[in-house]
């Protein structure tokens, strides 16, 4: 368990949030054009990184807003929080 600094409400317990998984997976612009392989990639394939991961969270028991988090999945340390639509911080890769 850890604390997440919601960009709208401030620091709250992780149990108030719901994880939305890997961030920056772009929804296909023209779904009808997609091959089966591309659908599989979009729907199912995940980086599942051990280390620094960019991910989405929803403050489901708070402001109910979505935002992005940079977190190290090997120790659950949160390195950065940024709003939807903002560019991901460049100093993590």
């Amino acid at each position, binding site marked *: *368990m850890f604390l997440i600094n919601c960009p709208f409400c401030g620091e709250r317990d992780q*149990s108030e949030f719901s994880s939305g998984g890997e961030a920056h997976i772009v929804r296909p612009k023209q779904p009808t054009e997609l091959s089966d392989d591309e659908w599989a990639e979009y729907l199912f394939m*995940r980086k*599942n990184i051990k280390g620094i991961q960019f991910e989405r969270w929803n403050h489901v028991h708070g402001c109910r807003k979505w935002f992005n988090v940079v977190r190290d*999945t*090997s120790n*659950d340390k949160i390195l950065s929080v940024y709003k939807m639509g903002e560019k991901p911080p460049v100093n993590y890769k």
Partner: protein
Amino acid sequence: MKNKYSVFSLIKNAFSQHENWQQAWGNPEPKKEYDAIIVGGGGHGLATAYYLAKKHNLKNIAVLEKGWIGGGNTGRNTTIIRSNYLWDASAGLYDHALKLWENLSQELNYNVMFSQRGVMNLAHNLQDVRDLKRRTHANRLNGIDAVWLNTEEVKKFCPIINTSPNIRYPVLGGTLQRRAGTARHDAVAWGYARGASDMGVDIIQNCEVKGIKRNGDRVEGLETTKGFIKTNKIGVVAAGHSSVIANMAGLKLPLESKPLQALVSEPVKPIIDTVVMSNAVHAYVSQSDKGELVIGAGTDSYVSYTQRGSHNIVEETLKAILELYPIFSRMKMLRQWGGIVDICPDASPIISKTNIKGLYFNCGWGTGGFKATPGSGDLFAHTIANDEPHKLNAAFNLNRFVSGDLVDEHGAAAVAH
């Protein structure tokens, strides 16, 4: 077998104060080259090596383990074994494993303490009742024993359950698989390790894989902390770390790794002689031969490799346990731990070739791989040896995420996989 365990060997060794037992498996340094390498020395990996040597006559095999054998999820699960899954493909897979369990102690000459004490799955609302009855019928059509019990029969089978209609999630009935049960998890790893080592398999502990060497579309070997090892067949059975290994070969898998927790209580006298699972309230409990209550909790909702898990998950599970078993209210919990489970979108495993020649994956078992250990090893060995899946694991290929032919077992698996 060079040193068969029997009542006579026990008596013989008693005369020397049990100081002359042979080492059960070797501790070799890696050779330069192997015919096949299994990455991951848990139950599934060791079973794979065992069946490769035994049934497919491959003798030059190594199992690489980054820690110690059976120290990952094999030693962290709640040891439940059952095969009451919904779909035909899963029924075939898990019942194959259950049939192997029934003879495993004899097969390995190692007591895995397989105990067919029955597994009961509880229903708490009308939809649970419908789903579980449907699953009972599906099981019986597939030749898997399953019965539906009403509330009184549940109470009779396990008297300590609170069947009052006034609790938050009343017990409306349940299913029972009598052939299901538990086994001693460490013994499974040790038994397979001893059997494999006897047939010449090199079990190499404290050896972490750092890279996969590829030549175009085929594998050539592994970079490890003990140097480069050449091979043209690699079977990866790395559970929570499957995606990490896949990444080394430039592959992406449909997996998310999450912490799953379990806990045990102080040991008490026999009080529950079966396994009771409740998917709806996230509680499952059995009692070990030592007397501890073995309780399985849920997974955290986020990707993590920390092998800890959150406290609120444990709290929720214990709340449910206390409502169903008020008799446990004064029990003290002794230990709590987490393991990293690799969860597939359809809650079914992957036992499959990949588009890289010589690279095979056995992963995605999520929260419930222990029950399948012997079957998984047997079928994965077949897949590696023949470069083709066995008919029992053909449906569990990696390509199902492209074709859409998923094996959706969320109902039978849930968190209490």
